[in-house]
């Protein structure tokens, strides 16, 4: 401590070999995370695939920083001032005795800022996952030879956000590839599930053995991993989806079955609203039938006429969401609400 008051001050030196450091400005939540007793590992991912190395103008691949469940866009800010990183060192100059010195060991001309990024993990996943479609017992699907982990590595979002979108799409792994089921396949698997539950006296709202029902569905010719994917998608919020037990959230399930049925019919002939409601009710456990009302799938359908119904086009929905997200809530209407709800699930 004597050194600081010493008239001679604190010697400042510059290392001849500067080190390479980056300075990252930390938002409070990241600072908190890093300073916790057992901080989690973070990762830096790339936004888009780059062109092969050696290309004169490789496509920009913006970097993002990911925590377990959040994503931050990295921005590089040039500083007009020089920022030096210093480290204490014992130095002796001009044959004087060694003194504690502050040594510049790195010089930074830019700093990095972190900005929260809300990417649409679901749309990225939809692009990367081939559709798994079963028609009349025949599987129609193109293998992508990619595991869930390698798919997540290709999306510049946190694993938590990818996982959420993965569950949202009822995606599943099968024989080294990953897929998302078509609405019609989902609809069939659900029917098979519902029938199996009825036959076995399983109440889907209470705890049941995941494997038991999944096996019954597999016997119908569906992938063994698909039924558990549906259970995860429809699990109660407090349900541990990694254990051997499942239990479904009634509200989620009723709405999911309705939307799936409607999407499965998408592009087909006119669908009478009354027929749809009947099919919907018939696809649900007896006790849930009364829940099948249009208001539980608000935002997911159009009524092209007074007696017919159809699913809202997914592409239109996606485009809508992209365009409207940055706008104020007032102009986004129910689409914004629907996507907001989906995200929170």
């Amino acid at each position, binding site marked *: 401590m004597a050194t600081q008051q010493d008239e001679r001050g604190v010697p400042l030196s*510059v290392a001849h070999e500067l080190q390479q450091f980056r300075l990252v400005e930390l938002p409070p939540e990241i600072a908190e995370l890093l300073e916790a007793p057992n901080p989690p590992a973070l990762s830096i991912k790339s936004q888009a695939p780059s062109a092969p190395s050696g290309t004169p103008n490789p496509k920009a691949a913006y970097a993002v920083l990911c925590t377990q469940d959040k994503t931050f866009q990295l921005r590089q800010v040039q500083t007009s*001032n020089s*920022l030096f990183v210093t480290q204490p060192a014992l130095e002796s100059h001009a044959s004087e005795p060694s003194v504690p010195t502050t040594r510049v060991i790195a010089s930074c001309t830019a700093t990095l800022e972190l900005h929260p990024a809300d990417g649409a993990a679901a749309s990225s996943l939809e692009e990367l996952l081939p559709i798994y479609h079963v028609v009349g017992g025949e599987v129609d699907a193109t293998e992508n030879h990619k595991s869930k982990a390698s798919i997540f590595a290709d999306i510049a979002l946190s694993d938590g956000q990818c996982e959420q979108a993965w569950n949202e799409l009822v995606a599943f792994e099968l024989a080294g590839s990953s897929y998302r089921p078509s609405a019609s396949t989902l609809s069939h698997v659900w029917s098979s599930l519902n029938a199996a539950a009825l036959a076995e006296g399983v109440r889907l709202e209470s705890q049941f053995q995941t494997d038991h029902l999944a096996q019954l569905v597999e016997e119908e010719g569906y992938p063994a991993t698909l039924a558990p994917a549906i259970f995860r998608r429809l699990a109660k919020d407090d349900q541990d989806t990694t254990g051997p037990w499942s239990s479904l959230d009634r509200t989620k399930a009723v709405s999911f079955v309705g939307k799936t049925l409607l999407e499965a019919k998408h592009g087909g002939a006119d669908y009478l609203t009354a027929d749809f409601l009947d099919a919907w009710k018939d696809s649900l456990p007896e006790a849930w039938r009364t829940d099948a009302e249009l208001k539980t799938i608000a935002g997911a359908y159009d009524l092209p006429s007074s007696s017919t119904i159809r699913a809202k086009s997914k592409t239109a929905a996606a485009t809508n969401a992209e365009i409207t997200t940055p706008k104020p809530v007032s102009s986004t209407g129910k689409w914004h609400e629907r996507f907001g709800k989906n995200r929170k699930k």
Partner: protein
Amino acid sequence: MHGPAKRVASAPPTPSHFQASNAPTPTILPELSIVTGLSLDSIRHQNCFAMPTIPLHPRPLNASSPTENPLPPLLHTPTGLALLELQGTIHFPPPTASPLPSTQVGKLVFPLYNPALNGPDDTKWMKRVYFYVGQNQRMTGEVKKLGKPFAVIRKRETYGEDVDVGGVEGGREGKRAKEEVEVVEIVRWKIVFSSRPEPVGGSEEGG
């Protein structure tokens, strides 16, 4: 970000010298290699087909324990790293044939720092820091709390075990470094010199 030898080409013969700059502050979206300081080719090599994901470890692997830190305790960090901001660049003669790892360019003086007299909680001393550059220039600055703390990150020095070490190259050169980065330190304060240096008499010292 290069060694000092490169900058020195334009340096005048004064022992050390200060050059002001007023560069704009553009913001860009950096690519992975810029953020991590890793070469894109090595990143790709590691992640053959997938998009690169670089682990950022929250703690350094080899935290060097600092020697005695001459700065006021407020500026101390576990690894001893601190931030110093200057309006400009420090130039100094090339360290040709110097056996020393560094060149002394000046000294920092905290003229109001006196915990014995003002108590350990005194913060007034932060308002004034002098940086004497060479014999006859002095900058006046202060110690400031950063609006947001800075993480100092660097490439993690680890070497793969599975790479062939023998052959002509041998040693560390032959091993391929794993592409990972780590947070070395989180810094909350900086010493800032935002004004240009003023001339002072060579013998005037300590404020």
